[in-house]
């Protein structure tokens, strides 16, 4: 018997990354009914895409998976995937909300997750966001094998039945008879929502800016950090065996460029907070895979303020063959074998130098979630100059509107521990209101 159940109302959480999930679990464990809305087909957000996590190098999906399952199975959490909030009225204590839920074209309660639909689907070449678009899938797909919910879906824009009225091979292949092309967009109306938490997460600057000065997209051996996470991840496109995208050769010399697209006036002025640490982590994991790898990290300031972070850096230097070079690089070019050459000024002697490497990894800037602008309009909350959710000084969970709270990267770049703590803090504020005091 939950203490709160007697006088509790419902809560809406937007975004089911680690922050949204933690807030949902905390509230659900207090006995509050939570509606959790996620625009992607599955929950877990960016954390699910990571290989390992700093500073303890736990496998990311391994520590996240139990939370995903808890969230999916919790009696107090109703999960809406492939869904967006499209209308919000009312005020603190009593919002009404409209959720637009897109169809999967696969019956959620019937699909067994066997994957026969994906095997037979003749449409290929659908870029999989989960693998940083490095892998293509069929039009019937699941973003990753351990996705929650474990239900396939059909890409409405690519499926030839939905676009041209032909095929239906998947319908024939599905023994469970789960395929349902009659599904339509549905609108779900929720009333008596006492408060709302925005946990919309983040995008990365490569989503909006080609990063030409680093030769990204032009040179195959210049990749972003998120792409690199997938490349070294056991469940990623190379099954955890790191190879170059140009020629499949194992890279032995890797350069990591910090502050790509951040801390400058031309791009974003702010610091993305997490890159110094995840770069060190990526260099460590790479070394664990192959002890011959040398890493070069080009940085402006090493930011290692979190618990155990400084020690993590020192370990990187001492045990993992990581060289930190205090610098911001000028340019990247390539030789005839697609080996990137980094041109930089050595701050130790002021000279311009070149470093030829096998692979470059860009620590790209965290930018606000692409949906923040629309979401802010719908919710009536203010954004900052970059489109992050604006928060009150010292009270990072408070937005400009009463009854609407935020946590995690939706309002500022931050690491996992802080996102989780902030999620709980937003849940705490919501609990005050849910109890009607």
């Amino acid at each position, binding site marked *: 018997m939950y203490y709160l159940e007697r006088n509790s109302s419902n809560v809406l959480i937007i975004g089911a990354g680690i922050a949204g999930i933690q807030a949902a679990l*905390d509230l659900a464990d207090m006995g509050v009914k939570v509606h959790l809305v996620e625009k992607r087909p599955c929950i877990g957000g960016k954390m699910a895409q990571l290989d390992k996590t700093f500073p303890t190098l736990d496998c990311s999906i391994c520590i996240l998976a*139990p939370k995903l399952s808890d969230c999916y199975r919790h009696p107090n959490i109703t999960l809406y995937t492939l869904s967006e909030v499209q209308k919000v009225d009312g005020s603190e204590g009593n919002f009404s909300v409209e959720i637009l839920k897109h169809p999967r074209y696969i019956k959620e309660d019937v699909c067994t997750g066997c994957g026969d639909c994906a095997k037979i689907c003749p449409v290929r070449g659908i870029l999989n966001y989960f693998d940083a678009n490095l892998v293509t899938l069929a039009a019937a797909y699941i973003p990753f094998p351990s996705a929650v919910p474990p239900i396939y879906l059909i890409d409405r824009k690519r499926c030839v039945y939905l676009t041209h009225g032909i095929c239906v091979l998947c319908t024939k292949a599905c023994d469970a008879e789960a395929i349902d092309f009659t599904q339509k967009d549905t609108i779900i109306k929720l009333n008596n929502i006492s408060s709302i938490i925005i946990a919309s997460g983040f995008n990365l600057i490569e989503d909006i800016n080609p990063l030409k000065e680093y030769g990204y997209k032009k040179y195959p051996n210049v990749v972003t950090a998120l792409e690199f996470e997938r490349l070294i991840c056991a469940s990623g496109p190379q099954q955890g065996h790191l190879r170059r995208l140009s020629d499949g050769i194992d890279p032995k010399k890797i350069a990591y460029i910090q502050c790509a697209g951040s801390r400058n006036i031309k791009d974003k002025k702010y610091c993305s907070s997490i890159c110094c640490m995840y770069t060190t982590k990526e260099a460590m994991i790479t070394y664990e895979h192959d002890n011959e790898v040398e890493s070069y990290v080009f940085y402006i300031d090493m930011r290692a303020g979190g618990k155990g972070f*400084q020690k993590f850096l020192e370990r990187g230097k001492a045990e993992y063959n990581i060289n930190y070079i205090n610098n911001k690089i000028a340019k990247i070019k390539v030789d005839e074998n697609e080996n990137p050459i980094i041109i930089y000024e050595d701050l130790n002697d002021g000279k311009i130098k070149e470093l030829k490497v096998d692979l470059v990894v860009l620590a790209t800037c965290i930018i606000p979630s692409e949906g923040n602008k629309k979401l802010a309009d719908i919710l009536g909350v203010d954004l900052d100059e970059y489109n992050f959710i604006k928060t009150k000084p010292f009270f990072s969970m408070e937005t400009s509107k009463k009854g609407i709270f935020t946590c995690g990267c939706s309002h500022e770049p931050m690491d996992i521990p*802080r996102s989780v*703590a902030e999620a709980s803090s937003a849940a705490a504020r919501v609990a005050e209101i849910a109890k009607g005091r």
Partner: protein
Amino acid sequence: MKSEDEPIRIGVFVCHCGTNIGGVLDCEGLTEYAATLPNVVFSDHNLYTCAEIGLKTIKEAIEEHNLNRVIVCSCTPRTHEPLFRSACEEAGLNKYLFSFVNIREQCSWVHMKKPEDAFEKAKDLIKMGVARATKLEALETIVVDVDPSALVIGGGISGMNAASNLSKQGFKTYLVEKEKNLGGLLNSLYRLFPNDQESSELLKDIESRIQADKNITVYTSTMITSIDGFVGNFEVEINQNGNSIRIKVGAIIVAVGATPLKPINLFGYDGKIRITQFELENVLKNYSLNANNIVMIQCVGTRNEERMYCSNFCCMSALKNALIIKEKNPDVHIAILFRDMHTPGIAYEEYYRRARESGIIFIKYSPEKPPIVEENKIKIYNEYLGTEIIIPYELLVLSTPLIANEDNKQIAQLLKVPLEENNFFLEAHVKLRPNDFATDGVYIAGSAKWPVDITESISQGYAAAARASTILSHDTLEVEGATSYLPEEYKDLCRGCEICLKLCPYKAIRKNEKDEIEIIQVLCKGCGVCGASCPKKAIKIKHFTNEQILSEIYALGGKELP
């Protein structure tokens, strides 16, 4: 619930854990091997057994094959046991009939260079696990009442916000502060970054809310003297000016903060013209500053061998104080000597930009060539120029870190929670349980865990309150059933030597009025110290019985337990 008398039917599930296990061990081979072991009626393998699909496979197999024991060969019970146990329960199997075999941390990860040997070891581990599973017994969990009240230790900014939130959620809250006043370090600060609000203003606001809140009882000048009990039912003794007071609470939050380091013997610190950043706050309060040349040194006494950590907020404190001085008097020369400017995020980076625009000079130094402080000038080697720079000063400000409070050890002992190597409190999980302790019902917030700024202290205060509320919101609670006990039939074996009573780290053992050993089940954590140390082998440890452990050892030697 399945009956224990029916024949043993074991299901074994081997997890690839992506390539964490599958990249080293032949999981299909292990699955086939498991099928050959005694009492195993079903075996399967999954890419991730912890994923929804994997859990579904377990539940379906329990039903289809009428399994009455389930073994998952994968990772660690620390993170995953609750998940697999609840999957078993959902399929009608007592959760204690689930067993873990660790083939990741104890096999594939440590033997990744020797996959063949690792495979043989994994087979042994599974064989042992199967032998143990055969001997497992169904157990009942214990249900306890929850007292809907909380104790917050520490009345700084983090603790006050935690208390305020808990009270607003409807829980009776006790806020205990060892000093005379609430507010902690906020009392010694002048203005706060990033909006330059006066510290006293923020403090006054929260303090008046706390004092007006009838649901919060504040005890200042008060120490914690003892803590007994367990989640939902802690009995705490506090001492206020010599008066002992007993309170009963369901949860406890530790928010004791941290202490600024005094840089004795560092950079000529004298507390007069060479002061700390914290001492500068006090100077700025009455603006009794008459120096035209000010130098600040960052990372004093930290990020070194002795204290291998960054104190997180000192760069921002230095920038804030330098800007305050610059705004009062733009002619004052200020130089900040730093190693790495720590201004993460949006507002802080913007603050750093403002500081540079205001004319504050930033000079980077390396720990190999630290600044040399002389009577009224500083020598610093600039790597970029390749030369030594001399800067005059009338005031030298040393940015020192927060260090762990001296009495953290006592508090940790009272609560039976761990500290890390710098004596800050150690949370249950660095990433996913940042404000929990591994001990149920006890939580951690603010700089007691690690140096953080005010914004993070507040958010952690709320976070810890939310975590406590997940316990306090229930009328009752289930606690671990795998405990130690003295079986009725063994009572005669006990000689009353009291070794167990002295060794029990949870104070769960006492002697009753008949002078017999009694193990209080709700206090017992099942650690097994009592059972292992009992000279007469009278104490039985549920879920880790001698029979269960010996069966594993015999299995390793290729024999059955006689």
